[in-house]
C-alpha cells in the first residue's frame, strides 16, 4: 500500500473546526430522515425501528467519512506554487502555480462563520474546481488571500 506523498513538504492542516462543520452538516441533513421513522416506529409499528436504525447507522458512517476527509485536507505554500492535499479513499495533491491564479475568492456560509472558518477558491484558466481550500481560520484567510494575490501578480504570466 503506497500512498502519494511529496518530499520536503510541510503541510498546514485544515482547522479542526472543519471536522465540526462537517459533522454538523451531516447531522442537519440526516436528522429528518432519522427522526421521521423513529416517530413512525413509536406511533405505528415497531418494524420502523429497523429503518430508523439503518438510517442512523448511515448518518454515523457519513459523519465518519466527513471526519476522515476533513482531517486529510491540508495545504502548503511553496516557492512557485500552492499545494493542496485532499481525500483519504480517493487521494489527490494539486499544485496551482501562483502565476496562473486569475483571482482568489474567500467565502464562508453562516455555519462556517459561526465556527470561525472560511473557504478559499482559486480560479485559473483551467476552471478546475478542486483548487479550493476549506477550513481556513478566518483570521488567516484574508492574509492568505493577500499573499497569494501578491505572489500571483509578481509572477503573472498571462493565460
Amino acid at each position, binding site marked *: 500500500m503506497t500512498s502519494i506523498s511529496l518530499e520536503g513538504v510541510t503541510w498546514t492542516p485544515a482547522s479542526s473546526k472543519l471536522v465540526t462543520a462537517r459533522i454538523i452538516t451531516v447531522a442537519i441533513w440526516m436528522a429528518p430522515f432519522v427522526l421521521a421513522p423513529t416517530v413512525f416506529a413509536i406511533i405505528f409499528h415497531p418494524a420502523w425501528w429497523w429503518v430508523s436504525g439503518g438510517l442512523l447507522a448511515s448518518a454515523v458512517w457519513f459523519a465518519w467519512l466527513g471526519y476522515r476527509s476533513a482531517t486529510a485536507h491540508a495545504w502548503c505554500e511553496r516557492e512557485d506554487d500552492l499545494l493542496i492535499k485532499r481525500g483519504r479513499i480517493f487521494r489527490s495533491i494539486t*499544485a496551482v*502555480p501562483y502565476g496562473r491564479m486569475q483571482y482568489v475568492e474567500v467565502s464562508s456560509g453562516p455555519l462556517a462563520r459561526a465556527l470561525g472558518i472560511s473557504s478559499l477558491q482559486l480560479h485559473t484558466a483551467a476552471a478546475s474546481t478542486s483548487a479550493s481550500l476549506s477550513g481556513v481560520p478566518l483570521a488567516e484567510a484574508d492574509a492568505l488571500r493577500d499573499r497569494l494575490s501578491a505572489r500571483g501578480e509578481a509572477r503573472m504570466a498571462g493565460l
Partner: protein
Amino acid sequence: MENTQGAAEGGGHIFTAPREWTRVHPISPLLGGWAVIAAVGTFWIERNLGGDDDEFLDLIFGRIAVLVGLAVGIAVIVIAAGYVSWWFHSFRLTDEAIEQRKGLLFKQFKQARLDRVQAVDVVQPLVGRLVGLAKLKIEVAGGTGSGIDLQYLRLAEAEAFRNELLARAGGAKLDRGAGADSGEGATDNPAAQQSHAPGIGGLQLAPSPGTARTWVAAAVERLLVAVPIKRTILSVLLSAGTIILAFIVVAGVTASIVASVLAAELDLIGIVFGGGAVGGAIAIFGWLAAALGQLNRGLNFKLGIAADGVRIAHGLLETTKQTIPPGRVQAVQFTQGLLWRKPDWWRVVINVAGYHEDPTKVSTLLPVGTRLEALTAMWSVLPDLGDPDPESMFSASLSGTGEDNGFINSPRSARWLDPWQWRRLGYKATDSALLIRSGWLGRVLIVVPHQRTQSLEISQGPLQRRLGLATVTVHSTPGPVKPVVRHLALADATALLEEQAARAAVWRRRQTTEQWLVAVGFDGESGDDVSK
C-alpha cells in the same frame, strides 16, 4: 502598385474597422429564424385554439386565409422585435478593446480586451453567402458568454475588422495618418489611405487580388494542408458510426428474414419485420443526418499560417474562417481510429480558451490528415518540439508502445486496471512540451506545451494505492483535449509532478507578452526594417 491602380480605376472604398459606435448591417434581423418561428407558431396556435380537428383536410383548405394571415402576423412581430434590438445593438474598436452595446430594457455593455483575444472567426451561413454578409465571432479568455458575436456585417467589413483587430492585438502600431478619422465603414479618399496603409514591421502585405481593399490588409497566408474532398468523404464512411450503422442494418435484415422463414403463419412476424424495418430506417436517417452535418462542416478544409496566426477555413454550405493567434493553443490531441490505421490517417483537435461550444465544430485543427500533415499541423501551433529530430520522434510517438523513444511507461501492475491500454500508457517530456500517449485500438497522443500548463494534479484511488500506481492530470482550459497520464508507477508520477511544475515555472518566466508581434520585434517600432 496594384492597389493604387485599382483605387484610381474603381475609386473603390477602403474598409476600416469602426472607431465610433456603429450598428450591424440593416438587413441582419431578416436573416434570423423568423420564417421557422412563424411556421411553428401558426401550427401551434391552430392546433390548440382551432375548432374541431376531425376533418383535417377540410380544416386546411377552409381556413387557409386565416393560417396565412396568422403566419404573416407572427413573422411581422418577430421581425419588428428583431429591428428593435438591432437599433440598440452597436459596436466599436478602441485602442485596447472591442466594445459592444446591446439591449433596450436591460442594457448590456461588453468589452473584450485585445490582448485577451484567443481567436477570431468569420462565419458565413448559406443565407449570408447569398447576400454577401458574414458573422464575426471574437473569442476571449473568460467564461462562457464572454465572446463577442457580431451578426451580420458586410464580408469586407468583417474582414477589415478582423485584420485590424488582429494587428492591434499583436501589438502593431497602426497610425491612421491624415484625414482618416471618419471611423465609418468606408472612406472615399483611397489615395491618401493607401499611402499610409500600414505594414507589419516593413513586411510586404499585398492583399490577394479579388478581395476587397481593407485598411489593414489581411496578412499573407501560406497554405499548409488542404484536405481533398475524396478523403473527407472516405473518412466519414470509415468511422465508428458507419460500422455501427452497418451492423444494425445487417442485424435487422437478418432478423426479419429469419423470422419470416421460420414461422410463416404467426402474427408475430409482422411485428418483428415491421419493427426491424422501422428501426433500420431510423438508424439510417440518424446516421445520414450526422454524416451530412460532418461533411457540411468539414469539407474544403484548409489549414494555413500567416503573421497573425493559424488560419483554418472549412465548410460547404456554411463557411467558416478561423484565425488563432500564436500562443493561444493550449493543448493538441492526435487520434486515429482502428479503421484509419491502414491509410494512416490522423485527426487533430486543439484546446483554445474561449471555444466553449460544440467542440467538434470549432476546435478541429485537421479533421483527417496523413501522418506528415499531422506533423505539419502541429508545427504550425508548436514550432519547436524541443527535440533534435522532431519528425521521427513524433512519428514514433504516434504509434509506439512500451519504452520506445524515451517514453516513461506504466508498470506491469497497471494491467489489472487497464489490460488493453497499459502497454501504451505513458509520457515523455521534451524541452518544450509534454507528450502523453494512450489508446490501444484507437491511438491517442496529446501534446501540451510546458508554457501552457495551468495546474497539475496527482491522484490515486484505493485500487491504485494497492498496486502502487497514480494518475497525473495536467489541467488545461476547457475543451476536447484532456491531458491525463493514467496508471503510472508512484515514483514516476511523483517525479512527473515535481519536474513538470519546475519546467512550467521556467517557461512561465520566459513568456514576455501576449502581443506576439512585439515579442518577435515585428511591431514596427523595435528593430530594423525586416523587408530590406
